[in-house]
């Protein structure tokens, strides 16, 4: 996993609430056995019109959104399924951070495991960012801060372990394997029981 310590980018804004994982990547693109290359399907049914052309009305298709690595999205982002294809698609599309006032549990876990910062802000902070698309933010993951162009600063909470993994690029499977002896002991204990 690519470590993420600092991020400076303009924001792209999707005001919709309850953006679900089917919205992020429709199920018909899940027949892949790869995890790369899914960016082209991100928000597919919003991004493209029926004839396959890009819909200029869609916020992420606007010229000002190009190259943005921070997505500010409406409340309850990522609800729905456990499909990790959702964060894979967003990362492959070029995003490194998603900010909202509420983010679905499983999506957030999946995002953080893949190096996509997914954090929540207060309602007021969230409203401010939704209302000001395109402003440049500077995110410091270790400090848990988001700096605004005018010098204002928002703070976000991040689970200590997720922060550690994200900033160090730590691989959680490796971490889990370090507990091999305890897992052996647990299994042995239960076998005696059973």
């Amino acid at each position: 996993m690519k470590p993420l310590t600092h991020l400076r980018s303009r924001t792209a804004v999707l005001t919709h609430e309850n953006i679900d994982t089917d919205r992020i990547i429709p199920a018909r693109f899940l027949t892949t056995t790869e995890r790369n290359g899914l960016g082209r399907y991100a928000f597919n049914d919003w991004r493209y019109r029926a004839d396959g052309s890009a819909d200029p009305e869609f916020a992420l298709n606007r010229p000002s959104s190009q190259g943005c690595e921070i997505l500010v999205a409406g409340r309850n982002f990522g609800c729905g399924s456990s499909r990790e294809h959702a964060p894979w698609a967003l990362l492959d599309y070029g995003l490194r951070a998603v900010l909202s006032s509420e983010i679905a549990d499983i999506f957030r876990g999946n995002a953080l495991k893949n190096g996509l910062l997914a954090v929540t802000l207060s309602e007021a902070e969230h409203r401010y960012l939704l209302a000001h698309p395109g402003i440049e933010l500077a995110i410091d993951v270790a400090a848990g801060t988001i700096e605004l162009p005018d010098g204002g600063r928002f703070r976000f909470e991040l689970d200590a372990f997720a922060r550690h993994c994200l900033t160090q690029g730590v691989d959680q499977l490796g971490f889990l394997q370090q507990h091999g002896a305890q897992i052996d002991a647990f299994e042995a204990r239960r076998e005696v029981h059973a």
Partner: protein
Amino acid sequence: MNPSARTLLDKLWDAHQVVAETAAAPGVLYIDLHLIHEVTTPQAFTELRARGLSVRRPERILATLDHSTPTTPRDAQGQHVYASEEAAAQVAQLELNCLQFGIDLQGWSSESRGIVHVIGPELGATQPGMTIVCGDSHTSTHGAFGALAFGIGTTEVGHVLATQCLLQRKPKNFAIHVEGRLAPGVTAKDLALHLIGRIGVNGGTGHVLEYRGSAIEALTMEERMTLCNMSIEAGARAGLIAPDETTFAYLQGRERAPKGAAWDQALAYWRTLPSDAGARYDRELRFDAADVRPTISYGTHPGMVVALHAPVPAAKDLPERRALDYMRVDAGKPMTGMPVDLVFLGSCTNSRISDLRAAASLLQGRRIAANVRMLVVPGSVTVQREAEKEGLDQVFRDAGAEWREPGCSMCIAMNGDLAQPGQLVVSTSNRNFEGRQGPGARTVLASPLVAAASALAGCIADPRDVGKSGDTSSTREQAA
């Protein structure tokens, strides 16, 4: 208050904790049963290979094919007709992965194949007291047995394959008390939709929902599964129901359930699982089962629900207005009477034998409306065989519905079974997100009874009106 009193969740958690969580790191939780299918596993096996790892406990895995699989019969050459080459390749990949890593796959030739959340309970693999995970959010279904069951991502699938464990923090505990009895004609699906409407699609975020109370105790196992299945639609990690005599009677004698002395031993343990008197929950909600009426969704998430004959509420904000526009639904009018194009009876929410029986009881001796196409997709080969034995397949065929092979089908619409843009689908599945059943498709979530009644009427209709003289399609006065 007894400080040592523990909830069902506490007991499940404590029994599986390999390493306790700390402020700095999540705990290590042991997983008893890992369910896998073709869609969310290929990348996990790739990772395993890349690291030269093996599968730690292949015997703790139940593998099946369900999401990408066609529900149409084989072609003249005896081949399955996949929606795409990619879908065929994905299935082939799981077959190969199972072969290579020593995992028993309920594949095409298995009489136990089916939707992952249908076959686990059916085989008796799902048992009280277990931790169960799957790369699929509706894993919450298995909570009906008093097992802690939740959906995980593909990276975590890899973790479980390699270590049989997950890094987890303990979720919060939310008790949902439902007292009384559901009225006749009101199903577990209605209860689930009603609850999500009440607490919202994010009402359960960060929590496990424990369903309690006399109304829950009165539910059959299949009804409990329907209810727990939908817990994720309220944003919850999992749903839970304490195991009781109903649970034990369901499991006894099933293929993978313990036998003989092992059964007695298991039973003694299972009886210790229900929450202790005086145990504390982080949140609680109480309501009366009599408040629940037949309920359907009218919007684009499962929290936008309304009682069958009640007027659709006015949009409170822009997203709701967008949803009503997308659904082409008018606020202030009931959903009954809206013309229907497709009816889907299936999915891990409502594809069990009791669901098929309920729908067939209405369709028996009747024909579905000429403007409606109806797909009936049993949840597993076992359900399919049982239905065929009871002659339900013939009831569906005679009524003009299509009797299909088992699979997820139109619940996720990735196998080629899907609606056309703009079509209105009355669906017994669990998600009505925009485009879930095909680009532009409009989904109305409903119980098997409402689905069958709507197929007959050609428009959204009340099952209690089927067979009554007069036009079932007309919307009438609010009954309750």
